[in-house]
């Protein structure tokens, strides 16, 4: 196919951007929301990989920008794996426990987009950001 106008180019660009978004977000600095997913042995055994996939899919589906999902090592809460931590700039970091795929989607919907913390799933919220 050939591009015959600026609009067509921008349309192609939007499609292409989805594939490379995660490379850009890292360089923008301060306003990035971070989701850290505990991916140690216990986390993976408890299903952290499925959780990670669900998060990525949901972010992509809802076209959320300025966010990055980082797999990290053991967060030390093996009893509640999979564990994820949500860091929103200017807010206290929130640590969620027993996050399966559905819970992950809820967190994105209610917490990241809606601004409401899912109190029932919070493990702890009084510690310094990792």
């Amino acid at each position, binding site marked *: 196919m050939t591009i015959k106008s*600026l609009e067509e180019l921008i349309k192609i660009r939007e499609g292409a951007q989805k594939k*490379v978004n*995660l490379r850009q977000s890292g360089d923008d600095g301060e306003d990035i929301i971070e989701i850290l997913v505990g991916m140690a042995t216990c986390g993976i055994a408890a299903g952290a990989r499925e959780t990670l996939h669900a998060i990525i899919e949901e972010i992509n589906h809802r076209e959320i920008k300025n966010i990055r999902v980082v797999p990290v090592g053991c967060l030390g809460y093996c009893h509640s794996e999979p564990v994820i931590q949500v860091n929103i700039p200017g807010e206290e970091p929130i640590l969620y426990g027993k996050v399966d795929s559905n819970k992950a989607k809820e967190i994105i919907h209610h917490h990241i987009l809606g601004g409401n913390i899912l109190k029932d799933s919070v493990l702890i919220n009084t510690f310094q950001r990792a």
Partner: protein
Amino acid sequence: MNTYRTHIMVCGGTGCISSGSDQLIDELNRLLIETQYDGEVQVVKTGCFGFCGQGPIVKIHPDEVFYVQVQPGDAKEIIEEHIMKGRRVERLLYHEPMEKRKVKEHKDMAFYKKQYRIALRNCGLINPEDIQEYIAFGGYEALGRALTEMEPADVISLVKRSGLRGRGGGGFSTGLKWELTRQAAGSPKYIICNADEGDPGAFMDRSILEGDPHSVLEAMAIGGYAIGANKGYIYIRAEYPLAIHRLQIAIQQAKELGLLGKNIFGIGFDFDIELKYGAGAFVCGEETALIHSIEGKRGEPTKKPPFPAESGYRGKPTCVNNVETFANIPPIILKGADWFASIGTEKSKGTKVFALAGKVNNVGLVEVPMGITLREIIYDIGGGIKDNKKFKAVQTGGPSGGVITEENLDTPIDYESLKAIGSMMGSGGMIVMDEDDCMVNIAKFYLEFTQDESCGKCTPCRVGTKRMYEILEKITEGKGEAEDMEHLEQLSYMIKDSALCGLGQTAPNPVLSTMKYFRHEYISHIRDHYCETGSCKALVKYRINPEKCVGCTACARVCPVNCISGAVKKPHSIEESKCIKCGACYDACKFDAVIKP
């Protein structure tokens, strides 16, 4: 469509490929398939990150982790630790030489902190063999805007106002060059990209073409529209096979999307690009010689005027711009002349890419705003001098430039200031020298290069550089005579004033500048037959310091002519008449007892 959660960017520049990045990519892909992570993790082969001294480079998104010197054997640990378990592989992180700490994230590295990347904006960020990735980061929008929203005259005035000057070394206003070609009578007109990069140690243009070929294609199309040309040539040396390969892919992909070819963006503008290969002659970087080479004639310069803007390729108006110059054009169109003009110094706007080489810790490619000092480049970005040696000089401008010494390290870099201290901007080669480098020898090295590369058309250059080289050779062999320096100086000015093209006119610069700043070295070579650094082999005299020698016999055992004698555990000595000055004893001694010169 697969959504990848992690992108493993592996540098696919020539530097990293030669240290094994291709095998690393294969190994990463193999392991990803084996562990069934291939659906969620993507390996991307990118252009040059610039950090060539530490290659192969791997950067992982979105965590922004930067690994250095990654061997194929390290792939397993990266996959098992970083990708599967989210743990950084500490031993592969970059170790900052000045601060003695491991650097976790890319943005914390001193090497990148002071850089400002315009021409290299996409190098290391995109896969250069995928036009979609270039488009994703704003590619071809500048061409679209120029064609659909601007008149050619607007494009020229924008580029003129931005203050962009030729990055090949001359520093002529790019906008003005475009305007002169547009106004010149005659058609068809041509636009040529000069990718005949020939300075020893310079690889700026190669890296741009390898890492972001589309930025050059897009800019050439914009330039073609501005000056009224429908045909562009990229003159590239055949020694750059990877750059050629990526350009061929890029041209093909751009044609498929209609971004090159007929009726681009539906405004009736046709533009095509063809590659022309050079045989790697230094003189073909000179625009008239380059044009002759494209025409199939001998790569020899002709006198200017007429300038190519009036009579160039096939006698038609032709605009020749350098690769890096072109790479600056799309951002200027998108972000505006004022944005570009806000970077840099009063007369030199924007940034400049330098290939940092020689005795510096971080060898590589850096892009810095004009006006930065050499000290910042060498110490902050370059990480200082290797092995804690003392800085002596830095050569900018390659064989056309000169040396810059300690006292001028704080000069803000721009076209005029470098000229004022006896060097020049050049295309961007920057070779750092330490206390072990002999300046007479350095001058000889550059003259050896220029006398060899001289095309032979004009006598001053053909014969003059040869004679200069012979005098320098004589001096470094200890056969120098008192009047040699005067002869060198006379020859220098004669060649500068009478040579036909830039090659000859600038060839004496390394000699003049080393004679100016390191006169005492010339004098000690000529008068005392003494080279303080020991790099002039003929002048070296190896001796053994009896107080330091412990009699380990290491030197005697490596000496190929058995001229070192002495009993075990007793100080040794060198018989000077038999010594062939190979330096093996100097390298073998663990006690610093062998002294040179």
